[in-house]
């Protein structure tokens, strides 16, 4: 059993595990009781997508996929920061309800 074969099997196992992780995180996005839960789950989804891109880069051998992962991480951080800012400002604006619901 050569090392390349072991690497191929590990790539398929890693893809399966990352798909399962994506499904579980998507369930939290749909289910999340508050808006902050959904934002956190979307941030986690970006992190899993970066891992997925890394596995695909190992599988195909193209090093250029790392640039996509880097750009995706940047955009994901900006989105999370913007959503957190939105939750903060909206909570300041609506003090009478005191709580921001998901819908």
């Amino acid at each position, binding site marked *: 059993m050569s090392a390349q074969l072991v*690497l191929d099997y590990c790539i398929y196992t*890693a893809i399966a595990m990352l798909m399962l*992780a994506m499904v579980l995180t998507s369930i939290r996005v749909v289910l999340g009781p508050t808006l902050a839960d959904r934002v956190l789950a979307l*941030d*986690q989804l970006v992190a899993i997508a970066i891992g997925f891109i890394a596995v695909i880069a*190992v599988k195909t051998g193209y*090093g250029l996929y*790392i640039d996509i992962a880097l750009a995706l991480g940047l955009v994901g951080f900006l989105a999370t*920061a913007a959503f957190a800012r939105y939750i903060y400002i909206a909570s300041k604006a609506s003090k009478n309800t005191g709580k921001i619901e998901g819908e």
Partner: protein
Amino acid sequence: MSGDIISLLSAFLLLAGALFSLISALGLLRLPDLFTRMHAASKAGTAGSGLLLIAVALDSGEWTIWLKCIAAIGFFVLTAPLSAHLLAKAALAAGLKPGFLDKEPET
């Protein structure tokens, strides 16, 4: 022979990173509170992505890929606590309380 060792090491890192991501997703689904979920997502998620990126760099072996992977990992390690802190601060301002604070006896 050294190529075999590098391939096996890369395979091990792939499995470890995928396992970290899976555990983080499981914690995100199963933990009871926003703040405990944040604990699962920001630390284990960053570890998973970082291990997978190290696996890519180890497998390719070119120094440009190493540089880009180290830059990406440094960026994630810098920004994951930042975004978690911003989100926790916003959630506290929006009225969500950590779970252990709810069990205090009211006077």
